């Protein structure tokens, strides 16, 4: 009878033991989900990058310099919240700026706090490739990581190329007329913000100088010279006038015309990209003028402002007969809007 009691007791003990042991995997279930968590973090990071323009938006986060980058709360690359998967090239360039160098614009902490989020110090590798271009930041990939891949399109800035095809439109037809006896010649490029920011144009295709550079390039300048006698003309200065719908145009007085301000604009003459100029170059021009106005330049422009960029030439006697107003608008003849470029953004988290 002793063995019968022992068997019954031992069986009950084993049953209890088995029940306890069977609960252990349930206790460990939370630990098994770490791999899943990486995928979730990668997905969340991908969504922020691809579907969100970031915060703040006015001025946009990509315009903050190193001294103020701590004010950035979230880094998203989308053009706007209404255009998921359409990335803005200026945001992309700032996000990956010097990322592979020893002096990157954004540090690991910045990426953790402004795009990956979470208390855990995740390692990451974020890359964006489009055609032959590749932007990348983060560490080399280990075996086993959370991953998401998003297919995107990248919006690049527009450019107004004023070449010899505009010669008939922008050349004084009868320079001997007394009204042209001045030594000055000027040529204007006009940006009408009310027209450019028209809400009927999707943000994916909109020319918005407040978030993208404005690029004005006058090429074939030799065709605008009075070629019979001269091989160059002197660009005295570049001036700006801002007008509102109910007021007269006023010059931009806050702008320094004597010192270069690369955060606001760059000016290159005759195709020499190594040498930049201030807004009063007083230099002979024989082939090209390239002016790029950065988004920070437009900080004081309202939704209905009109900005005139005026190129002023002065020689005695005049060596160019360029004149007129070129509209920076959606006319494809006036402004070249670059096609959206397909790319792929990959986020790996571990």
């Amino acid at each position, binding site marked *: *009878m002793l*063995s*019968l009691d022992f*068997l*019954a007791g*031992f*069986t009950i003990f*084993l*049953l209890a033991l*088995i029940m306890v*042991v*069977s609960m252990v*995997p349930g206790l460990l279930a939370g630990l*098994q989900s770490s791999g*899943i968590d990486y*995928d979730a973090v990668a*997905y969340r990071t991908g969504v922020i990058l691809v579907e969100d323009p970031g915060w703040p938006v006015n001025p946009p986060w990509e315009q903050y310099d190193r001294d103020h980058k701590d004010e950035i709360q979230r880094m998203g690359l989308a053009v706007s919240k209404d255009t*998921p*998967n*359409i990335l803005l090239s200026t945001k992309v360039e700032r996000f990956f700026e010097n990322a592979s160098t020893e002096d990157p614009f954004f540090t690991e902490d910045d990426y953790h706090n402004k795009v990956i989020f979470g208390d855990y110090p995740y390692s990451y590798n974020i*890359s964006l*490739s489009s055609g032959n271009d*590749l932007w*990348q930041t983060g560490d080399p990939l280990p075996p086993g990581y959370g*991953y*998401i*891949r*998003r*297919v*995107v*399109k990248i919006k690049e800035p527009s450019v107004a190329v004023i070449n010899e095809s505009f010669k008939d439109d922008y050349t004084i037809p009868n320079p001997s007329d007394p009204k042209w006896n001045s030594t000055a010649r000027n040529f204007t490029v006009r940006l009408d913000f009310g027209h450019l920011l028209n809400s009927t*144009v*999707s943000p*994916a*295709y909109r020319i918005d100088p407040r978030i993208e550079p404005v690029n004005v390039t006058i090429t074939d300048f030799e065709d605008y010279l009075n070629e019979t006698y001269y091989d160059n003309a002197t660009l005295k200065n570049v001036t700006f006038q801002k007008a509102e719908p109910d007021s007269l145009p006023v010059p931009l007085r806050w702008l320094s015309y004597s010192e270069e301000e690369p955060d606001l604009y760059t000016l290159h003459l005759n195709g020499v990209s190594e040498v930049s100029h201030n807004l009063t170059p007083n230099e002979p021009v024989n082939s090209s003028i390239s002016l790029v106005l950065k988004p920070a330049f437009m900080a004081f422009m309202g939704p209905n402002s009109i900005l005139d960029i005026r190129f002023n030439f002065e020689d005695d006697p005049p060596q160019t007969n360029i004149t007129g107003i070129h509209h920076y608008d*959606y006319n494809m003849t006036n402004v070249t*809007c670059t*096609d*959206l*470029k*397909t*790319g*792929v953004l*990959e986020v790996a988290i571990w």
Partner: protein
Amino acid sequence: MVNDTGQLYTMEGVAAGLIMLLTAYIVISTTSIYTTGDTHIPDMQLEQLGSDVLAMMDTPDKERGENQLVGFIKNDQGDDLRDRFLDNCKMRAGDADADLRAQVYLSYRTSDSVNTIPLSPADESFTRRENTVRVTRWVQLPSGSYSHIPNIETSRPHAVLVEVLLWRA
């Protein structure tokens, strides 16, 4: 002579049987680590990828530019649609993700029913047992001639559903 030896053997047998059954239960319940909760993650990644690609193919590269998705459907280029779709899906920073397959279908309303037709030729490797994901996008076709789409209303713009089955080979 009658004693309790037979009862003892019966009790031992019952106890051993219970122990074996419970052991088997524990083994089975603790080794099924890959749960249905995990399988949806690769599916979600693939579904997101396919959805992105359809959206981008439905986005012209410039204002009033050509819509790739509409162009392929309009010109009866289902094969090209699938190839372009897969090309976009396979893009990566390093080597292309080569083992993706896809099948494209088109659904549309006729005067009295809803038709679904394959837009791309059948994939020979498709056995219908693959773990596929389904991504869709509504596309607006302009009015015009669509002889390759039976019974579709062509006198006015028409919304059609592009459906792609996507799987890893």
